[in-house]
């Protein structure tokens, strides 16, 4: 079920792709993500306010906290390799699974049309 925000977007841009993001409460959101604005997945999640401010992207996208951890539900063969920094951070994070990635390290690319991700729990402690 697309959220209301999508209905308000006046023009469909050719450079947008559709991504399904499941929030921490389990609700799925089908959102547009621009491929021409140098954005990463964490920024898409924040733009659509799918996780409360202060609980996602805390370090600003430097792979230096793990607050933007997501489980990648498909397209794993199309994702960029993990950098040393990302591996490093996922090592210290909690709730890590095989398909965990830091969403700030996933650039929005045309090939990711139809991507499905779930935001990992926020460790409030």
């Amino acid at each position: 079920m697309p959220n209301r925000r999508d209905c308000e977007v006046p023009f469909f841009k050719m450079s947008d792709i559709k991504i399904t993001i499941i929030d921490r409460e389990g609700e799925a959101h089908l959102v547009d993500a621009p491929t021409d604005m140098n954005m990463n997945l964490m920024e898409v999640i924040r733009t659509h306010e799918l996780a409360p401010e202060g609980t996602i992207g805390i370090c600003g996208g430097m792979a230096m906290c793990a607050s933007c951890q997501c489980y990648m539900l498909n397209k794993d063969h199309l994702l960029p390799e993990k950098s040393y920094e990302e591996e490093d951070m996922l090592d210290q994070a909690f709730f890590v699974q095989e398909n965990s990635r830091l969403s700030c390290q996933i650039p929005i690319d045309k090939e990711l049309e139809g991507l499905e991700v779930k935001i990992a729990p926020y460790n409030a402690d």
Partner: protein
Amino acid sequence: MIKTDMLIIGAGPTGLFAVFEAGLLKLKCHLIDALPQPGGQCSEIYPKKPIYDIPAFPEILAGDLVDNLMEQIRPFEPGFTLGERAETIEKLEDGSFIVTTSEGTKHQAPVVVIAGGLGSFEPRKPPIPNIAKFENRNGVAYMIREPEDYRGKRVVIAGGGDSALDWAIYLSEVASEVSLVHRRNEFRGALDSVEKVSELAKIGKINLITEAEVVGLKGAETLESVVIRHKGEASEEEIRETDYFIPLFGLSPKLGPIANWGLEIEKNAIKVDNSYDYQTNIPGIYAIGDVNTYPGKLKLILCGFHEAAIMCQSAYQRIFPDKKYVMKYTTVSGVNGFDGSKKEAKREVVKSIN
């Protein structure tokens, strides 16, 4: 009791620059920070990373930015309370505030400036349901303050970074038994430390338990054993008896006790009046830098600097309601340090030709 004109909570770039702006107005500053060194995130998280959007610095390392700020504010002799977290605030009848830290240090000032960034950095706690029960000397510690406490004891350390490796090496000489539990086979620490740990593991001084995670804690009053889950198809669980469990998973920022000071909070940040002076809903308490929010807020160091300068003018008026301050450029008036130093532009020598 530490008394000052302006008490700044948070010694990151914004808090440090506020000392300079306050110094120009002859206001003395004292800073409190939960980290043991000044610089905030710039020192703690990314000292070796470059920043490209500091005006007039095409590129500067975060650590160098902090060093420069410390040099810039040195003439104004700021005081520091480091390694302590600001816990409570109390307003006195004369309008001044008393801020008490986690260690009980008291600070009094007519103006309090929160420049707390993302909050205070605290150890990441693993999500083990009953972990809180064993905190505070009952077997779980998130940092090692006194290594001698572990002499002759059994210790389980969890984590794969430098601090986990370094403490495993150190405690292997002190504790009766050291186990190091890590999720993966690879360790990320300095090569020396990784080699040393594998050597100590070979001779049996460290029990190296990799591809495993501590998932449970057992004990009536104090910790008696940890439950370790091994990765694999059939997730195996192992119970290991221990006196201490020390999870070392790095630090993460929390807004912390400031959130309970009665300040208006929105989106995990403190609401301020950005049309005027970055004051919060409590007169006399200001919030500048990444910790505040207002329409159009940008969490940039340069915005924190700007907010610091504006805030100081209002703070000055609050401290000296009868005085009128006239802004002067540093190029014109120089910088007069509280330490007696004076910086000023060289005067042109005008000599008439007779």
